């Protein structure tokens, strides 16, 4: 299958890229690696007249500022993010998540910023519509959903692997908006509407991801469940953060973020709250996993049932919490006091 014709713009700075976005507006699409955009263009579900490739923008290495915050350039390749010592040491969950994306070839092209902005996916949407599923669904600008025929909204899934990890790390995105720059927590980037998944303005670009300095007695763990070893989008993914009290027994802070089961990554707020102040023990972890599974509401999908997804959420959360507790309490891979 061939790519449709398009104009290629290759700005050498984010400023220039934003200027081009202003100039071309909706007719332009950003390529920050292209591993998601190009297949969609081949399927003709994305047909931008102009592709703005960010490939020529110089990429800086991840670095730590004086306060210990980790800055990762948005255009860092996923494979580089996964293998960077600085990322591995300060945010292992991010490195694990980056390594969980796609395959070697995809990680060598795909970027962190691109993965954060990954288009929500659906079996019906992510394929060519030359002979089947031809009427456009909501996501293709139409007025129907093949999955929920009587519904009035899109049910595509936000499948990014790095986003739950970044939420677990309380990371923020630095956004270039015109001449202005602002910072927004990664968690707040998403609308929940798969048709317009990002809260960003149409000419805004993420330039950096900032991960706050690691805290003592705190572990962030990423886990992914997928049909095969590698290449697949997650059936469910999950990141948990656990901070223990000074005696390393009770929970002082917790995040449970679940991805790939709905239009945006979800937090298990009740389960998190319930953990606070509790002494961590197997039954507490088990209870938290159970609470997460009943609290998160997975969307309908065509390849497995909601009840199955809940089981997976429970199992994945439990495994992640166990690992997080073990690391936080033993100090393994965790910032010393």
């Amino acid at each position: 299958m061939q790519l449709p014709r398009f104009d290629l713009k290759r700005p050498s700075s984010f400023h220039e890229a934003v200027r081009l976005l202003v100039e071309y507006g909706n007719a332009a699409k950003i390529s920050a690696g292209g591993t998601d955009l190009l297949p969609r263009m081949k399927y003709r579900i994305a047909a931008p007249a102009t592709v703005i490739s960010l490939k020529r923008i110089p990429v800086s290495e991840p670095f730590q500022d004086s306060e210990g915050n980790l800055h990762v350039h948005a255009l860092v390749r996923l494979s580089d993010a996964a293998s960077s010592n600085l990322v591995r040491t300060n945010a292992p969950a991010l490195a694990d998540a980056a390594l969980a994306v796609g395959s070697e070839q995809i990680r060598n092209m795909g970027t962190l910023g691109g993965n954060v902005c990954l288009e929500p996916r659906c079996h019906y949407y992510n394929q060519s519509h030359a002979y089947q599923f031809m009427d456009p669904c909501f996501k293709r600008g139409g007025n129907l959903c093949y999955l929920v025929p009587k519904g009035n909204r899109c049910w595509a899934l936000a499948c990014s692997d790095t986003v739950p990890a970044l939420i677990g790390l309380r990371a923020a995105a630095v956004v270039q908006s015109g001449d202005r720059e602002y910072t927004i927590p990664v968690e707040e980037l998403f609308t929940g509407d798969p048709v317009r998944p990002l809260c960003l303005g149409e000419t805004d670009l993420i330039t950096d991801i900032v991960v706050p300095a690691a805290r003592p007695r705190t572990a962030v763990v990423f886990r992914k469940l997928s049909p095969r070893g590698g290449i697949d989008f997650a059936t469910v993914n999950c990141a948990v953060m656990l901070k223990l009290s000074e005696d390393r027994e009770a929970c002082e802070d917790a995040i449970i973020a679940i991805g790939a089961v709905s239009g945006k990554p979800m937090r298990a707020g009740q389960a998190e709250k319930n953990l606070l102040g509790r002494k961590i023990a197997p039954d507490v972890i088990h209870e938290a996993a159970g609470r997460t599974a009943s609290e998160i509401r997975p969307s309908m999908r065509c390849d497995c049932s909601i009840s199955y997804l809940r089981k997976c959420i429970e199992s994945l959360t439990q495994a992640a919490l166990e690992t997080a507790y073990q690391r936080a309490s033993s100090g393994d891979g965790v910032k010393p006091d």
Partner: protein
Amino acid sequence: MKCNVINTPVHNVDGIAKVTGRATYTFDVTVPGMLFGKILRSPHPHARIKNIDASAALALNGVRAVVTGKDTLGIKQGIWRRYKELCDEQILPLEKVRYIGEPVAAVAADTEEIAEQALDLIEVDYEVLPAVYDPMEAIKKEAPEIHEGFERNINVTRHIEWGDVDDAFDEADYIREDWFRCSGQAHACMETRCAVASYTADGKLAVWTSTQSAYYHQVLLADVLGLKESDVRVIAKYVGGGFGGKFELDAAQFCSSVLSMKLCKPVKIVFTREEDFIASKRRTPMYYYVRTGVKKDGTFLAREARVFTDGGAYTGMGATALYLTGFFHSFPYKWRGYRHDGFRVYTNTLPSTSMRGFGTPHATYCSELQIDLIAKELGLDRIEIRRKNGHTPNYEVPGQATIASCGLEQCLDEIEKWIKSRGELPPNRGIGISSYGFMSGGIFNRFDTPYSFSSAVVTINYDGKVDLHVGAQDIGQGSNTTLAIICAEDLGVRLEDIRVHSGDTAECPPDLGAWGSRQTLMAGNAVKMAAGEAKRQLLEFAAAQMSPNIVYDLDIKDRWVHLAGRPERGLDYFEVVKKALRGKDGQRIMGRGYYTPHRKGMISPAYSYGVQALEIDVDPETGKIKLLNCVTAHDCGQPINPLGLTGQLEGAISMAAGYGFLEDIPIEDGMVMNPNLVDYKLIRAPDMPETEVIEIETYEPEGPFGAKEAGEGLTNPTAAALATAVLDAVGVPIKELPITPEKVLNALKEKKAQ
């Protein structure tokens, strides 16, 4: 037997061309002046074509021609040529479309891009008809009629029976019945279906294409295009995979030929991956009912089975899958009474056809899982019950097949040993086993070839180097290497002395090609005969040269022509060839060989046997299965190339395990849900188990040097072994393929509730 070349592991003879990127696949073929073709396909699962208006497309700059059914002879084609009513497919239909993606028109243009644009400009007026997608629905009285004259949409029926079944059931102490459901599977060849057709003004057509049988396509194309067979040349030097999906006529071959004949210009059509998924053919999905009666001690008495197969829109090779699933469902066991009723039902979905194993992976899965359930119920050892009832050498399947070599018992011994060596397993870990067998080529000739099934020509040149011409088709399985080994062994030369010519009907003798695991035995016999004939001619001269006592036999081993029994008395092979040629007035030495099976029953001249054990781990929380170890004891008679055998085994495991737990083609209202390699789950390297093959050597009298098949048969056990492994690991039988994590979890939940 002492062999010089056979049973030495070697890399494929075309390996260097492939790994250096020099092998020219159809995908790579370009011909001067070549145009690009694209196919317009039906968006409706069932509709009458009222009108096709291509005027706007033809007006587009760069468009050279648009063809529809009206530009063809309208001949209904099929691969069962002996049965006219089963030739039911017009590749560009005149009246009706019967599945989504069926071709309705084809365009040739200067570029692929223009051809694609032109598709949007063709107006087709359809009258949409009611459609049906499931065989159990399509067989109902009120279901829409897909083909005229086929009552209840039943395309083919097949009854197989021997012994007194009812009487045998009467004697049974225990009877078990189960329903099973087996999914479809995509061939997912690396090279999608493609063709370059070049028709020239002298009335001759050349077609480069990706095929399992150049000869089949020569004949099928001649039939539908109204040409003489010999005016059609099919060239397939390198083929990027077939797996059973590339020996029927496909739309790339047909449409490029029709366009080329209209324009007298070469036209290339390459399917996109999506077209390959939606609009080619697939493994036949089946509903299986199995009833089995046994004695308390585990002796098998009777089996009765009914199968309903989803035929999709056309017959193709799918009718044979019905036949073979019926026969191999009895395999590899002895039954006093056996009855199998098969119904192939048309539906408005993509047609189903042959795929590696050809109905047998289904049959084996249902059979082996049920046998394990029976053994469990009766408290019998699962190896013992298989040993007690297994085929033995020289067994005759009543009225069906004569078996000569059979190493099933040795296979069971080896697998039993391996399982014991694993010791006590941790929880949620299990080992599944499956016995299996397969044919070494089919005897049935529904294609109605008047030629021998396989043929070969061996030519010895002045310098002693050998040209081997075969009609057998190398599709990546390594048949050129196997045949070169057989040729070198028989002639007494080295492998590097042989140059194999295959995949071109203009230079190679006719042969039915690569299907039914037939080439090692059938083409191998033809090659052996041709090599033997050439050798005999050479030895006549050698005898005259050496003038030994008349009672001596001559032989050639490793390029040394000598007296058999007195190898020190001999001559250099190359010198003998040079002299022999002069003595023959300069003619090259040439031997011809052929093979057609006779008096070997209806199915196959010989059968491979094997037992596979598969160790898996089941996550009871998510139902996810991890494949750990796979050990296969396989009786392929005399192995020809052990490295090729390992390649076949590992490839088979990836394909067959994929069928067992990952691959599926869900269809919704006739539409394929996962027509891409992201959502269609092929096994990847990290999902593969450790594999080991234990060669069980037997001698098959009908095979060349005692060899039997080692290709398709290896695909038969793995889905079954996976199902029995799940049963062993967590105690639940999953009676529906693929064995997804969700099915495992649901079954566990059900078990807990009981």
